[in-house]
């Protein structure tokens, strides 16, 4: 899922200080699962904003709404009926949602209430970690199912570097060395001997963010 975390309240309050009528828009997709932008978080954030405004003696009217998904025009359209009554939309979906709202409703600004952090998963309750950097050119079949681009802090294809120590990365003793994980896994699979000495060539990064906004086209699905 796309993992996000709420922006600091101070930053949000500064962002919305010019507005007295506001939509706080959540999303029932990824950000709801990672407890950053779902229905619950909409309620909490709206309450926090109202509380802060009461302290300034300046009321704010907040419309609380949570869409099925903010990355789909069909659902984004659901704000149409009342969007005209408000001055801004504070979206707590991922960056995609904020941009979809901005593209869709041209009259008022769409503001980000969360920082979109990474594509990852839940390790346990309350802990999410990164697994994929969306490089657009997957090599997991060569590295035992562990991503060198994401898990190695230098994205080495021929690691580990000389900073790997006791299974940990040189950037932080809490961070596992991605290449130690890969080596352990290759051994588990009995692929170590075969794979490790192979030199992986420089990666084609043109499929990554380096190539500008990316596109996936499926003509068979088009109408």
């Amino acid at each position, binding site marked *: 899922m796309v993992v996000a975390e709420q922006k600091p309240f101070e930053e949000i309050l500064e962002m919305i200080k010019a507005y007295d009528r506001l939509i706080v828009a959540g999303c029932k997709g990824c950000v709801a699962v990672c407890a950053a932008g779902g229905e619950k978080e909409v309620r909490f954030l709206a309450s926090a904003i109202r509380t802060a405004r009461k302290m300034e003696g300046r009321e704010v009217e907040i419309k609380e709404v949570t869409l099925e998904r903010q990355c789909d025009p069909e659902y984004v359209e659901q704000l149409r009926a009342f969007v005209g009554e408000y001055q801004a939309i504070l979206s707590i979906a991922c960056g995609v949602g904020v941009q979809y709202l901005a593209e869709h409703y041209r009259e008022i600004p769409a503001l980000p209430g969360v920082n979109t952090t990474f594509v990852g998963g839940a390790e346990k309750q309350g802990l999410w970690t990164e697994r994929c950097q969306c490089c657009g050119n997957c090599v997991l079949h060569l590295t035992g199912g562990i991503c060198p681009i994401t898990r190695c802090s*230098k994205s080495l294809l021929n690691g580990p570097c000389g*900073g*790997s*120590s006791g299974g940990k990365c040189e950037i932080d003793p809490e961070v596992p*060395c991605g290449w130690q994980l890969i080596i352990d896994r290759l051994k588990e699979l009995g692929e170590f001997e075969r794979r490790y*000495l192979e030199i992986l060539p420089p990666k084609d990064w043109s499929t990554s963010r380096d190539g500008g906004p990316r596109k996936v086209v499926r003509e068979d699905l088009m109408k």
Partner: protein
Amino acid sequence: MKSSSRLERVLTAGHFAVTSECGPPRGADPEAIRRKGELLRGVVDAVNVTDCQTAVVRMSSLSSCLLLKEMGFEPILQMVTRDRNRIAIQSDILGAAALGINNILCLTGDHQRAGDHPQAKNVFDLDSVQLIAAVKAMRDEGRFLNGEELTVPPKLFIGAAANPFADPFEIRVLRLAKKVAAGADFIQTQCIYNLERFREWMKQVVDMGLHEKVFILAGVTPLKSVGMARYMKNMVPGMDVPDELIARLKGVPKEKQPEEGVKIAIETVQQLKEIEGVSGVHIMAIEWEEKVREIAEGAGLLSRPEV
């Protein structure tokens, strides 16, 4: 000869080579490099110039190399892949060769997290193994990474680093083998304090026959104090400083510790000379360049051969 390098000639002639390094200054003062260079005159066959080591901004390696070359030194251009993509890397390689720099040490580079600009965006377009292969293809095949031909190939002697003390230990020699396969001509190792572990590593190197394909220069860094030894042991990832060494430094009064540190370095070099497959030493006296002469002299490595 593969290159125009003096270091290559020294090693190929079978001399036990001596290299050292200069860390460029955090400023635009050319004298800082010249002063360090002066301390190494007549002591080394070639001198490394670090490339923003520990991810701290310093004068560029290439321009510092040129300053040393003007003084008559044989510089080794260190290049990390942290800060340059393949376009900048290949461009700098051509530029270095055009300026008469004959050696390159291919490194990945320390992560910027621990450096002086942790907010920087890193590059890591290539890794060190891929960089070695890129330089080799440019030199031997006259081709860029995209396969296209270049006009005049850069005649560089290609170096790489090896850390016998990083983890996992069992892949350390295999990783060296990858660097050799990619095209490394010489290797400079991480500082060696644990000679036992280094011998074990060298034995694996010799068993695989790698010492016949690549020149291995063993790294030595003199310890200035117990404090430095402890710092190296505890704070620098992939560094192995045995407790006996710390105890030995602790056993002498504080003002005598630098002297003891130099003594240890000399003994280390003498032992390294006896290890099969070791072709030279790389003496890295960090901000203590004046001691390189004493160590080389003490270990019987002066004077340096004319080649």
